[in-house]
Structure formats: structure tokens, C-alpha cells
């Protein structure tokens, strides 16, 4: 009887958990619903004013326009040609900042030296400098460096302003790793790099994923640096999206705007889906460690 009661209670609790999770999911989905339904509507229907209703006629025109014919300036080639620009800049920037961040976190937690905590603090305080302030002096520095290539400039800038976060994530994870693990390895004669690659990196999967998710999102969605430090044909996706969406005295095509925004988000969504899986694998890695 007690067993039965307990299992009933357990069932109720589980039902409650699912209910909360589903409610939350609905809240998260609401704007996506608005965007999706708008993207399938015709402009006339949007103009008629029912912005939240389901599309009356189902039209894919906005999607094909967003992909290949919408104007982003003098060129009217849609979003397709900007995908590559964003990818070329994002992949190196994310990988470099994650790797360097992992090393930094490792040093700042396992190899502390005089001033290392101070440096960590200085690094974190710097994050509160609004990026808008950075633009002008950065332009000056890049001018001096004679770095002409859009992709190169953006990778450099994104690595510099992404490092604090990757460093923060790794350091805060590594301080929770028992120090004995490293001490034992050092007694066994393992050096700086060996400890990092053989012991710490394998158990860092969830943190690596967090970094990848964070950096991918930040870099892919960055507009300010993208618009300022790229030129002409090297412009990333967000600049094209903004040009497509943001018009002050032109006619607004909300359906195309919404479709373009969803298209622009696809690569990050992919990273979330794939990356998320590894959170779970991270669990197994953690269990092995325990």
C-alpha cells in the first residue's frame, strides 16, 4: 500500500514536471509561431491586420525571396551569398577562442601564479566595456596593422572579445575538478601539455559544448563588428539580414523579413541540436571520472 502511494506520488510529480516543461516550451515557441505564420502569409494578408492568426493561404514565396531574390543593397540576391562569409569567419574564430580559452582556464585554475587572479579579474571587468566604445580605436589599430581582409579582421576581433567568456567557462569548470588528479599526474612526471590533453580535455566535453554554443551564437549573430569591420562582398549574414529588414522609408515586407531571420538562424540551431547531445555524453564522461 505504501509502495502504491509512493509510486502514485512519484507519478504525480513526474506529471507536474512535464507540465511545467511543456508550458515553458509553449512560452518559448510563441514568437517563433508568429514568425513562421507570418512568413507563410502574403503581404496583403499582413496588411489586413491579423498578425497573429494562422495564414489563410499558404505561400512559400517569402522564403524563396529571402533566400535568393530579396535586395540587400544594390544587389538583389537574397541571403544565399552571405552564408559562406559568415561561416568562413565563424569557424576559425570559434575554434581558436575555445582552444585558447581552455588553456587559459587550465592555467588560471591549476597553474596559478602571482597576479593570475588579478589578471582574471581584469579580464572579466573588461567585458563590461560597451562594444560600441571599442569600434573607433579598434578601427585605428586595424588600420595600423594593415589588415585588409574582412574575414581576417573579423576573426581577430571576435577572438579578442570572446576570450573572456571561454576563459571564464573553462576556469570555473576546472576549479571544481579535484586538484589531486593533477597532483598525481605531476608526480608521475606528466608535464604541462600532457596533463591538459590527457586528463582535463577528455572530461571537459560539457564545457566545450557550452563554449561552442555561446561563441557560435555570439559570432554568428554579431552585427556591430560585422558591419563595421567588413567591407562590401565580405559582409557577414547579419549585415545582409539587417539591410533586408531595416528600412526606414521603404516598403516593409514582413513575410520576407521573418523568413530571412529564420534562415539566418538555421546554422546556430543546428549547433544547438548537435551540441546538446554531447551534454548527455558529458554525463557519461563525468561518471567515468567519478
Amino acid at each position, binding site marked *: 500500500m505504501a509502495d502504491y502511494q509512493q509510486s502514485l506520488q512519484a507519478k504525480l510529480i513526474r506529471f507536474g*514536471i512535464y507540465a*511545467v516543461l511543456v508550458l515553458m*516550451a509553449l*512560452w518559448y515557441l510563441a*514568437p517563433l509561431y508568429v*514568425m513562421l505564420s507570418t512568413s507563410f502569409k502574403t503581404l496583403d494578408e499582413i496588411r489586413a491586420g491579423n498578425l*497573429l492568426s494562422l495564414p489563410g493561404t499558404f505561400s512559400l514565396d517569402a522564403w524563396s525571396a529571402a533566400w535568393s531574390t530579396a535586395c540587400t543593397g544594390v544587389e538583389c540576391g537574397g541571403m544565399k551569398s552571405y552564408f559562406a562569409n559568415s561561416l568562413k569567419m565563424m569557424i576559425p574564430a570559434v575554434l581558436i577562442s575555445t582552444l585558447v580559452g581552455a588553456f*587559459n582556464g587550465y*592555467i*588560471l585554475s591549476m*597553474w*596559478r*601564479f*602571482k597576479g*593570475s*587572479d588579478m*589578471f582574471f*579579474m*581584469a*579580464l*572579466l*571587468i*573588461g*567585458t*563590461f*566595456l*560597451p562594444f*560600441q*566604445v*571599442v569600434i573607433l*580605436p*579598434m578601427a585605428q589599430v586595424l588600420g595600423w596593422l594593415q589588415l585588409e581582409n574582412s574575414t581576417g579582421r573579423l576573426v581577430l576581433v571576435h577572438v*579578442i572579445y570572446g*576570450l573572456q567568456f571561454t576563459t*571564464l567557462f573553462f576556469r*570555473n*569548470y576546472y576549479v*571544481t575538478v579535484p586538484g589531486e588528479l593533477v597532483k598525481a599526474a605531476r608526480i608521475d612526471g606528466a608535464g*604541462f*601539455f600532457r596533463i591538459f590533453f590527457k586528463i582535463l580535455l577528455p572530461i571537459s566535453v*560539457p564545457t566545450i559544448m*557550452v563554449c561552442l*554554443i555561446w561563441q557560435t551564437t555570439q559570432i*554568428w*549573430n554579431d*552585427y556591430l563588428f560585422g558591419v563595421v569591420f567588413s567591407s562590401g562582398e565580405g559582409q557577414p549574414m547579419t549585415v545582409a*539580414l539587417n539591410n533586408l*529588414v531595416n528600412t526606414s522609408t521603404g516598403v516593409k515586407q514582413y513575410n520576407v523579413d*521573418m523568413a530571412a*531571420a*529564420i534562415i539566418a*538562424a538555421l546554422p546556430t*540551431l543546428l549547433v*544547438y*541540436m548537435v551540441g*546538446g547531445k554531447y*551534454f548527455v555524453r*558529458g*554525463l557519461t564522461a*563525468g561518471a567515468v571520472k567519478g
Partner: protein
Amino acid sequence: MTASRQGAPGFSLSRLADVILPKLVLAPTVLACLVGFYVFIGWTAWLSFTESRLLPRYEWAGFVQYVELFGNERWWGAMQNLGIFGGLFILVSLALGLLMAVLLDQKIRFEGAIRTLYLYPMALSFIVTGTAWKWILNPGLGLEKMAHDWGFTGVTFDWIINPDFAIYTVVIAGVWQSSGFVMALFLAGLRGVDDSIIKAAQMDGASLPTIYTRIIIPSLRPVFLSAFMILAHIAVKSFDLVMALTGGGPGFATDLPSIFMYQHGFTRGQLGLGAASAMMMLFTACAVVMPLLYSELRRERRG
């Protein structure tokens, strides 16, 4: 620390490498941080003491920009808004993120799908999601209209057009965008917690809620620090979010320092004033974050 104090007796090439390598590997970051933050902060500080208009000028002009800034009603309104927005945004995102992570950690079916759902808002550029939120929150187009159409004519939800409540709609949209990532942070933290500790506690007859509140959540302290830093930095720099949702309005009900800074520094040709406001933003952020960081780091070293 121990390695560097070892001295002559244990001297060997690998020991030397252990002393030099960490510093060497850290060096590029130190350089990037020095130039990318502190030299640029110095540059901005200098500009805040000049009469720079469209482009930087470097002649010293004293405290004129700060006098102007402190006499500016809009600036104080923006700071006050940042206080309300920042506080609520951080608290709600932390609470919600932790709650979702704990719930998702209960061996949930479809965990992958749900997790991606919570994360996706971050993937969307706010230039466009802002429009979607604007429609949802607008009483004539969105939720209120929907409720009225369904016959609930008593429902009013007009925060976005009400100057006293508009700032809370910014909180709603901000939390919507960021809480998923906080959830991811906590989830990663939870997955890193040692199972054996939990098993031991279960053996002792501790209930699941107790295990969470007494053992697991306290062990996530560093994750809280990460999440707080991330959220605080988003709050201080929030720009796209507000521009797309309310444009700072109605009136200046949702104006934020970052908007003030951008408009004066870049749009209105008052670069000096923009620089001064940036310095004040930085000071404010330091005043809030420094004590917290300092005590956290000291605590770690003791503990």
C-alpha cells in the same frame, strides 16, 4: 605557485618548463586584454575629457562632458531603467534557468528536443524577433486582442504602451532570449556533479529536494558566477533588444545607458559626451561586480 618556489634542489628542465610554459601560453591573452580593453578604455577616458564632436579630437577640455552628463535628465532615467531591468533580468533568468535545468535533469523523455526549444531564442537575431514580440505584446494586435476575440473582453495587457510598465516587457523579452543559455550552463554543471556523492546521500535517506538544495546546488557555485557574469554583461550592453522592441519608448520609459551612449556618441555627433557616458557605465558595472568577484576569488583560495 608551488612550482615557482621550489628553487635549486629540484631544478630540472621540465620544472623550468612548468614555470615558463603557463605564462607563455597565457601571454597572447594578456596582450589582447591589455590592448583590447585597457588601452581602449584609456583612450575612451581621454576622449571623455575632450570636446570631440563627429570624430575624435584630443585637446584637453576638462570635465565639461561630465557636467553635461550629470545635468541630463535622460541619462538618469536611463540609469534607473538599467537598475530595474538589470536586476529583474538577472534574477529571473537565473531562477528560471536553474529550475529548467533541474527539471530537465530528471531523466526526461525528449530531453534533446525540449533543450533545443529552450535554447533557440538565442539563435535568432533580435532585429527580427523584436518585431514578433512587439506584435505579441501590442494590445491592438497581440495577446490582448486575442483574448478579446475569444470573448474575454475584460483582459487588459497593455504594458508595452504604458510608460510605467514598458520596462517589464523588455525584461520578458530579455529573459526569453537568455534564460535558455543559463539553463545550458546549469545543465552542464549538473552533469559534472559526481554521482557517487548523490548516491551516498540517497543511502543516508535524504530526499531528492534535500539533495538538490543542500548538496548539488551549492556545488554549482562557480556556475552561478559564470551565469551572473554573462547575464550582467548582457544587461549592461542590451541594445538591439530594446531598439527592436520599444526603441527606448514610450517616450524614454525604456531608454538604457547603452542607447544613450550610442545615440550621442555616433548619431548626434557628441562623441565626447558618449565617451563620458561609457566611462560611467563602466564604473557602475565595476562597482557592482568587483566586490562580488573579489570575495568569490578569496573564498576559493581559502576553500
